[in-house]
Every structure is written in C-alpha cells, then in structure tokens.
C-alpha cells in the first residue's frame, strides 16, 4: 500500500483515497489531520495515519452518539442535541445513580460494574460483531465472543467471566437461492456458521451460554446481527486501575499476525461485494482460556497496575488508551509475531485475537512473565509507559510514528448531523375475526421468531462452572422456553445473577420510541417472570442501525434513545454500558438495503436468594391462572398482524408507573415460601406475554408443563378489546401470566392490590388448551401436544 500524502491536498480527495486505503475518515477529520501535520511541517507516516484512523473510527469513538445532531420531530419542532449519548442514556443513569446507590463504575471501563454480594461486584458488557459475521459467520461469531469475554477480563483489574449471552438476527431461513443477492451468504448458512462459532468458542473456553434470542427478518439477509454478551464477577477493591509512567507494557496471549487488519475502521463502512475477509480475525478459544486462568492469578497477586484487551485497532488502541493520560513508548520488534515480514503499521493495528496488554511495575515483570510461562502463555515486554504525553512507536531502531496523546484522543472534530422523524403511513388492517383461532395459534407458534430454538440452545453448554440455576430450557421435559437465566457464581451463599434481554425491531418500523420502551419492558418483565425483583437491575443498550447520514434513520435513533432515557429513569434501572453499530447496510446492483433499526436491551439483575426462582411451566392441575396487566388493542408490529400481511399502527405502549407496581407485587409474591416446600410457595409458574401475546404465552406454559388449561377471555383485564383474536394475540406490554398455588390465592391478591389483575382460568390435567371467548362460547380448543409439535417443527435444523 503506497503512503498517503495529506499535505496540500483537498480533504474531499483525501476521503476518497482514505476509503481506498480502508481508513474511512471524513473530510473534517482529514482537515484536522492536515492542520496537525502542517504545524509539525511534515507528512504523517502510514503508521500515524492508521493509528488516527483506528482511534477515530466509529467503533472506538462513537462519533454519531457523541456528535451534534439537529433534530426535527414529528411536529416540526427543531432541537439541537449536543451529544445524544450524554443527553439520553447517560443522563438517565446520572438521574437515578444517587437513589440506587449500587452503581460501581458505569460507561468508563470495558464493562459496567454494579455491587453484587459482600465480596464481589458484578459486571456486564454486550458487543456486536455484525460485519465480520456477514463475511465469515463462524470466524465472526468466534471472535465476537472472544472479544466480549476479554472486555470483561479487562474490566477493573480483571473480572472472572461467569456467563455468556447471544442474540442473533438473520434473514429468512427459507429464502430461495435465486433471490439471494450477489456476494451474500444464505441466511441458513450464516445461522449455522454463527451457531457453531459461538458453540465452539463458548463451550471450549468454559463459560456457560445462558440466555439469548434469534430473530428472522428479510432485511437482515445481507447484514446479519450478532450480539455477544458476557457477565463477570470482580472482587471488591479491584474496580479501578491506572497505568503509571515507568510501568512496562506487557503483551500477553496470542501472537500478532495479519488477520483482522482494519476491523475497526471497517465498522465505519457499509458492506458491498468487494470487502475482503482479511478484516476478520481468527479465533482460538484455548489460547484465551490459557491466559484467562493465569491472568486471574496475576490479578490476585497484584502484579499489574492496569490492563485492557486488544480488540479493535489492536495495540494502537490498547496502548493508546492506557497511556492516554501519561504517554507510551513501544518497540514493535519486541512483539511476538506469527510470521516474519510484517510492516510496522500492520503489527501496530492488527486485530489478531487472544491478546491483552498489561501495565506492569518493573519490579514485577520477571515474576509475571514466569507465572504466564508456567502455563505456556507468552508474555512479552514491548515498551513502557512514559510521562511525555506522546505515543511513540519504534521499529527496528527507527521511529515509525509519534503522536500527541491530546491530539489523538481529543483532536477529532465532532460530527454534525441532521435527523428528523415522521411516523410512517401505516394503517390498521381491516379484516373480520377468523373462525379458526386454533390454527392461527399454531401458525404463530411455528413462526421462526417464536418457534423453539432448542436445536441451537442444546449445542451450548449452559452448565459449566456449576452455577446454572434457571436454564434456557425448563419444564417437565426440559424443553419449555425460559424467560431469563439465573446463575449462582459462588456456592457459599444464595445470591445470584439473573440475565434477560428484550428486542423487537418490528415495533420500530412504526415508532422507535415505543420499540425502545417495549424492549426495556420486555427485558425487565422477563426478570420478574423468573422471580427477580427490580430493586437492583442494570440495563445495557445495543443499537444496530443503518447509515447515520440518512436523516430518517438518525431520527429513529434519536427517538429510541429518548425512550431509553424516559423508561430507564421511570423504572429506576440505570444503563451501565452499551454499544452501537452503524452502517449495517449492503449495496448491490446500485440498490442499498438497510437493516431495520434494531435495539437490544440486556438486563442484569441481582437476586439476594436464587431459590426465589420461578419457572414458566404449569405445575399442578387445579391451580388458578391469573393475568397481571391490562390488555389493549395493541397489535401494531405484532406477529398476528404479520400473519395477516400487515404492519399496522397500534404499537404497544407502556405506562411505567403501572408496570412498576405490578412487578413489585409479583416479585414479593415470588419470594414467599422460599427455601420451603413447593406447596408453601405462592407463585408456581410465571411467564410474560410478548410475541404472539396471551395465546402464545398460554400455549408455552401448558406444553412446557405437560398440562392443559381452561381460560375465559371475559375475565381478562382489558380496555378497548372486543375481539377474541385481538384479546389472544395483542402484544401489550407489562403483562404476566401467573399460576398461583390454589391455597395461596388471598396472599397473592393482597400483594397485587391496586394493579390490573384477574383470575382468568385454571390449570387442567394433561391435554387441552381451551379458551372461552368474549361471548362465552368456546373459541379455541387445541391439543397441547399438537401445539408443541408446531412450535418445535420450524427451526429443527
């Protein structure tokens, strides 16, 4: 690659040349670079340009969220948003931080940290690895997981990873090959590759994969989404770190090669047919497991003062970030390489996997290197932290590049962008109430987004480390869909961690505000469904969007972020970490396809006693069934409307004050009788109503428990719902179905007083799901086994 000369060139030309060199810098950024080097009176070296491009990439700098946005809302009101992140997500956290009192470290480390038990904190991070997974599903998913695990390892002075989560969005699995765009892998191939990538990495490294989701939509065909999350536990007192001048820079783990060059800058670009897979890294779980084990030992011996993972941008980002406040000097010839012949800049920005960088006081270096060597892990001193506030990189005795830390970290101009939002002209579909609701229920259960994900889940180890309490599959035959996972990381107490997620891009087609609100509510009600109270729950946001230069797309982002603020504040569930991924679009034959704006909300809840757990399967014949939460005619973006070929307009909304009260009552009810016999418990089963509404939730509870039920829709707490199909399939938020111990009805009703709840029926013996309609007639009578078969038949590949 020829060196790029920047002085005396038009920034517009530089943008084009920069794109060819995979730098992906914009005009304003090139102008700032020109100015900096004009002052120095020289051209930048290639290594310097690469360093700047990595550091200023969307992946590392979150330029869209941190920039200035001129936003025009649906009523034409204009608003200047100076830093969307600070004004929405971060603001929500700041507003509740004082009140909650259990936040330890938010938004500044590799993962967010909250207080857990008397000895440990808990932390979590969720990453995306979309572009790599589109090109190389197996490798992309592998390294996506490897990367987020290192984020947790690099959190504080090093947290022990105790659980992984994964959420995937793919194109439709039955897409005809003739309809597959050029240069794109078939969704089924991507799905299988990603599944195997997560399986082989997660299982090998010995971290249980406990929670996730898989969604399908035609618009993910060219740009699949792969979200990987990791939960960790960190000993108290290990939450802060600081590299000091004089500390040695020690690289540990794998060697550096040419794999994964330009991964960071590549995240700032849209995909097309020309992209090379050399940007995708190559993963090796065992390499990472090896240093994971030793790293935690070195941590407990306090052998290092700071650490971070080598992710996007490789050494350039890791050393650049750690030395941002002091300075660093690196000698590249000391970095162990996979093979000879690499250029300076390649070594410096390579994203080869399984590497971390430590800051080690000189007196500890020998001991640390030996500790790693004892377990066959390479640890190499590649430089030291300085006090000159410069990032100096040497190679073969020559200076390959030197940049001011201040310029590198604060010299990039802020992005100024325009955004606007107007509701799309969707109409409510008009059709008469179908006669056969049973066959519709079966079609819903078989819809890929609702259908059983057992084939995938069973290939993931969710037991390793021995702390799995509530598993992703539950029930009499251990195949029912659990709402959230619960882990107990330490065996000397009953405290545990619950993890869930919420995601529904279909709502975003109608209104991203309510999509975000619904995603938060879904994640939270999933936690409540397993018996976790919302007293100590943290949220993580993951925005996967199309091109932020598109005003409407950016408008959707603003609207979703505003909802994140409003709902998180109202629930008192602060955000602790997040991630964004833009440019999820693909151009082929002059046509650009973008993903639907997709927000994943992950929730991490602390449980004082994991024995409070509740699973979703029906337990006992004769127990009453309650619905808590009101059903509205909210089918916009629902799966039911989708079956009817419509999107609709009536997207589910949310009144947080009402939901909070319900959730508090349910959590209290779930806590009664803990540690005693099951017959002493008040709540015997609980499940939230989400995709497919009440109908799908009932069916899942019934067949997971191998039992039936009889319900009467006339008793359903509802407003404006006058049709049986709407009552059964509306996707209103904030609703739970609860099987209550028949001898504990009074206790349950007392705890739910003041909320919208009603007993709508009872659990029956093995067999049928029977629904009496709003006129008192039987509108649905289906065999539980047949429903289960429909649910299990779609994704059994």
């Amino acid at each position, binding site marked *: 690659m020829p060196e790029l000369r920047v002085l005396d060139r038009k920034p517009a030309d530089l943008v084009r040349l920069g794109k060819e060199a995979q730098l992906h810098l914009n005009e304003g950024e090139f102008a700032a670079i020109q100015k900096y080097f004009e002052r120095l009176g020289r051209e930048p070296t290639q290594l310097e340009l690469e360093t700047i491009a990595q550091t200023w990439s969307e992946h590392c700098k979150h330029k869209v969220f941190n920039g200035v946005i001129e936003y025009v809302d649906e009523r034409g009101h204009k608003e200047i948003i100076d830093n969307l992140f600070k004004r929405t997500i971060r603001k929500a956290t700041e507003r509740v931080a004082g009140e909650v009192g259990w936040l330890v470290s938010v938004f500044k480390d590799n993962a967010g940290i909250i207080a857990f038990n008397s000895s440990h904190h808990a932390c979590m991070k969720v990453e995306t690895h979309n572009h790599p997974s589109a090109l190389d599903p197996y490798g992309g998913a592998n390294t996506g997981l490897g990367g987020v695990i290192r984020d947790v390892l690099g959190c504080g002075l090093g947290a022990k990873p105790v659980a992984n989560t994964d959420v995937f969005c793919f194109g439709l699995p039955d897409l005809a090959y003739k309809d597959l765009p050029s240069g794109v892998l078939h969704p089924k191939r991507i799905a299988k590759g990603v599944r195997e990538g997560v399986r082989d990495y997660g299982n090998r490294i010995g971290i249980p994969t406990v929670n996730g989701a898989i969604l399908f939509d035609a618009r993910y065909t060219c740009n699949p989404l792969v979200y990987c999350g990791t939960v960790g536990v960190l000993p108290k007192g290990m939450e802060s770190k600081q590299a000091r001048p004089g500390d040695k820079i020690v690289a540990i783990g794998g060697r550096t090669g040419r794999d994964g060059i330009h991964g960071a800058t590549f995240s700032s670009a849209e995909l097309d047919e020309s992209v090379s897979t050399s940007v995708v890294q190559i993963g090796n779980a065992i390499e990472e497991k*090896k240093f994971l084990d030793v790293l935690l030992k070195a941590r407990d011996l306090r052998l290092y003062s700071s650490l971070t993972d080598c992710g996007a941008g490789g050494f350039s980002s890791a050393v650049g970030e750690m030395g941002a406040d002091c300075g660093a000097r690196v000698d590249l010839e000391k970095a162990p390489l996979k093979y000879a012949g690499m250029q300076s800049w390649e070594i410096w920005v390579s994203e080869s996997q399984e590497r971390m960088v430590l800051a080690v006081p000189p007196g500890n270096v020998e001991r640390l290197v030996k500790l790693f060597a004892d377990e066959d892990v390479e640890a190499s001193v590649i430089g030291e932290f300085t006090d000159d506030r410069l990032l100096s990189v040497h190679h073969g005795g020559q200076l390959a590049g030197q940049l001011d830390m201040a310029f590198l970290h604060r010299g990039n101009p802020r992005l100024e962008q325009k955004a606007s939002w107007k509701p799309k002209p969707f109409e409510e579909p008009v059709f008469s109430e179908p006669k056969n609701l049973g066959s519709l229920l079966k079609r819903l259960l078989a819809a890929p987004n609702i259908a059983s994900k057992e084939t995938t889940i*069973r290939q993931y180890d969710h037991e390793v480390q021995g702390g799995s309490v509530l598993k992703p599959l539950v029930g009499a035959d251990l195949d029912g869909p659990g709402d959230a996972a619960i882990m107990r990381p330490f065996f000397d107490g009953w405290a545990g961690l619950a993890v869930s997620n919420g995601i529904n891009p279909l709502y975003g087609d109608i209104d991203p505000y309510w999509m975000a609100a619904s995603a938060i509510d879904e994640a939270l009600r999933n936690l409540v469904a397993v018996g976790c109270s919302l007293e100590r729950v943290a949220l993580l946001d993951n925005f996967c969007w199309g091109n932020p230069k598109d005003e409407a797309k950016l408008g959707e982002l603003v609207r979703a972020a505003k909802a994140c603020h409003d709902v998180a504040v109202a629930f008192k569930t602060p955000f602790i970490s997040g991630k964004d991924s833009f440019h999820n679009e693909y151009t082929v034959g002059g046509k650009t396809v973008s993903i639907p704006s997709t927000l994943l909300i992950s929730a991490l809840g602390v449980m004082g006693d994991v024995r409070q757990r509740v699973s979703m399967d029906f337990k006992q014949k004769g127990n009453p069934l309650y619905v808590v939460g009101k059903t509205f005619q909210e089918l916009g973006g629902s799966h039911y409307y989708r079956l009817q070929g419509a999107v609709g307009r009536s997207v589910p909304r949310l009144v947080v004050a009402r939901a909070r009260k319900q959730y508090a009552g349910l959590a209290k009810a779930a806590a009664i009788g803990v540690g005693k016999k099951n017959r002493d418990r008040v709540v015997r089963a609980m499940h939230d109503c989400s995709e497919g509404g009440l109908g799908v939730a009932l069916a899942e509870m019934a067949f997971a428990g191998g039992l039936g039920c009889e319900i009467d829709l006339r008793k359903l707490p509802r407003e404006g719902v006058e049709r049986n199909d709407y009552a059964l399939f509306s996707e209103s938020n904030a609703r739970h179905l609860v099987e209550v111990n028949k001898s504990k009805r009074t206790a349950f009703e007392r705890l739910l007083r003041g909320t919208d709840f009603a007993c709508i029926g009872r659990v029956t013996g093995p067999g049928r799901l029977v629904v009496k309609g709003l006129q008192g007639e039987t509108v649905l009578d289906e065999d539980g086994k047949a429903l289960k078969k429909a649910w299990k038949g779609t994704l059994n590949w």
Partner: protein
Amino acid sequence: MEGDAELVKIMAEFKAMVLKTAGTNCDFETAEALRLAGFSPETMHVNELIRGGKNLRDYRFLVLPGGFSHGDYIASGKILANKLKYRLGEDVPRFIEEGNLVLGICNGFQTLVKAGLLPGFDGNYKRQDVTLTFNDSGHFQDEWIELKNVNKGRCVFSKGLRKTIHCPINHGEGKFIPGSRKVLARLHEQDQVVFKYAGRNPNGSLDDIAGICDETGRVLGLMPHCEKNLFSVNDPRSTRLDLPVEGEGTAIFRKAFEFVKKRK
C-alpha cells in the same frame, strides 16, 4: 495451636488434586464438590507435575475434571493423555497401585481412556482398549439425563450409592465404544461397568454405557457431570419437585471421601 496442627494433619490426609491443563474448564466446580465432600482440594497445572514442583504422592485422590484439554484437537483428551503417559510415566499407575483414587469426568474420562488408565485390564495402565468418540448427533449436546448405577460392588465410588443420579451431559464426544466384543464382554463380566444412561441414550454409547471403572474399582471415569448437581437448586426438576438441598451428584464425591477416610 495444637488443634490447628492436628487440623493441618487431617487436611493433608484428605488432599485431592484437581489436575488441569490448557482448556480444562470444570476445575472450579470440581474443587467445590471435593470441598463439600470433606477433601481439601488443590488445583494443579499438569506442567507443575511434569516439572516436579508437585508430587502426586502427597495426595489421596486425583481428579481430572471436564473441559476441552488442548482444544480436543487431534481427539478429545488425547494430548493430555499423552502427557500423563509419556511425561509422567509411572506416576499415575503407581498412584493407583498404592491404593489411591482416580476420577475422570467428561474430558477427564476421555483422557483416562486414551491414556490407557481405563479399563486397565490385568493392571495394564498403558493400553487403550476402549474409546469415546463423536456423539451420534455429530455435535456438542447439553441435556440433563438420568444416570443409573449398575455396578454390583467392584467400584468404590458406587458401592452403596443411590440407584440413580440426575445430572447433565455436556459433550460432543461421549459415545462409548469398546475395542472389540471381547472387551465389552469382559467389562460386564468383571463388573467394570458402573453407570448407564437410564431411558434415552443421548449419544449412541454401546450398551448405554456412561461410566466404567478399572479392575481395582478405584479408578472411575464417567461422561455425565455429577459435579454440576451439587445443590438441588441446580437440578431443573427442583421447580416441580421437592428435593433435598444437596444435589444428587455430590454423593459420588462423598463415597470417595468415605473410602479415603476408612482407608486411613
């Protein structure tokens, strides 16, 4: 102080080694299981034994936990098996001959089998007579199964043990295949078959075999993870049934402890 010294001495009698290498990943819960049963466990990297930093003779119980030792590249457990066989030489066979206990769970079982430590016919701890290979499904499986204790008294881990143990399997290469019909017949004849899968056979193992022991009954290998059911809160049936606080899997470790205690 005298009490402490006494305690240290007692602890030393019940020292158990959890042997790990690159890719071992069930060492944490295995050590917890040993502790619950009364042992004082130490987790050790195989390099430490190879270098001579630690001596197996200071321990009464050697446990090879689950995981993906060296990535299971080549074949599951193979590389670690070769380290035991060629780098530690007579250490493990001598450890067995001296009357100590050895347990291999999942990857540990695969390792014992590939090193020739199981089934150990005629006291030969170097010859591989059986193997564990890819599940019939062709991929990793995580599911809870019922483990049936079928041993008639040879295996010290299962003597007087409950009839069934509910615990998960987490493996991709758990299909038990003996080298010949003769080997299979001999395993049955010599009462070396310890555990079978009750109900559905999850991986295609011959005769539903899930675990075997050596001729002394003091070396046991099994695929299912008994150390994943130490507390009934981990047992998925516990949301439906009233179970005692202790999980069913702990019993195997308790049997080991009883044996070591009696022997002392």
